[in-house]
């Protein structure tokens, strides 16, 4: 993507957000009559105005930057969830768990990225983010192998790259 200046990036992000909201409305309703589509447009505009007024569209949370990478990221995330889910299931059945606390460093440089990383850690079964202190997470892992997987830093890198 070409380097855009701040204002045009913001405008494009607003448009993207608007389109996402409208597609979401359409998926949930499924109506194609023009009157109902108009009502949908009005409600989408209302939600857009509310999120603008609540300052939910600040610099950190503009959707444009990551929207193309997001589907690939979700596929990757599902693969990770499946892998550690199988490990956790095996640990539950054979009883060889050894819970431990570790600290993990995050290298993302905005709030959305850090929240994203913490969520991804919690979402993969077997690891839970307990506390966030600036850029260090306190993580509870169910076994040594799971905590070592986390300390290889793969997940951190993928989520940092998501935001470039």
């Amino acid at each position, binding site marked *: 993507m070409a380097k855009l200046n701040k204002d045009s990036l913001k405008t494009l992000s607003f448009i993207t957000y608007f389109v996402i909201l409208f597609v979401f409305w359409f*998926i*949930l309703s*499924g109506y194609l009559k023009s009157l109902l589509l108009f009502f949908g447009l009005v409600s989408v505009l209302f939600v857009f105005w509310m999120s603008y007024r609540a300052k939910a569209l600040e610099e950190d949370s503009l959707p444009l930057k990551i929207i193309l990478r997001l589907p690939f990221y*979700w596929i990757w*995330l*599902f693969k990770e*969830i*499946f892998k550690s*889910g199988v490990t*956790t*299931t095996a640990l*539950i*059945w054979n*009883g060889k*768990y*050894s*819970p*431990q*606390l570790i600290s993990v460093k995050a290298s993302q440089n905005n709030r959305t990225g850090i929240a994203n990383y*913490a*969520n*991804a850690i*919690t*979402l*993969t*079964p*077997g*690891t*839970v*983010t*307990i*506390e966030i202190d600036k850029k260090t997470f*306190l993580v*509870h892992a*169910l076994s040594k192998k799971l905590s070592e997987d986390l300390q290889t830093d793969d997940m951190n890198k993928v989520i940092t790259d998501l935001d470039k």
Partner: protein
Amino acid sequence: MSYNYIELISLVLLAIGCFFILSGSLGLIKLPDVFSRIHAAGLIDTLGSGFIVLALIIYSGFSLLSLKLLLIPLFLIFTSPVTGHAIALFAHESGYKPRGKNKK
């Protein structure tokens, strides 16, 4: 004939999802402390519900309904870590220490 294949695939996926939910429930009872039990609950949230929704999508065929079904795991992706983190943080702040297997 192809109808039967679709039914078979969704049945297998449903069975896998049920197995993960069973394991998660077993973990909820078996594991030693609050923090470990959150892992078991997370297993139900992600893999259990994920496989069951996948089976339902395959069973119902591709339509607007399957897009709606896809929204369920999408919402779970955002909400389930928040609840897990909230429980863990509260347990941590009220002074619970994680327990190892052999220490009582």
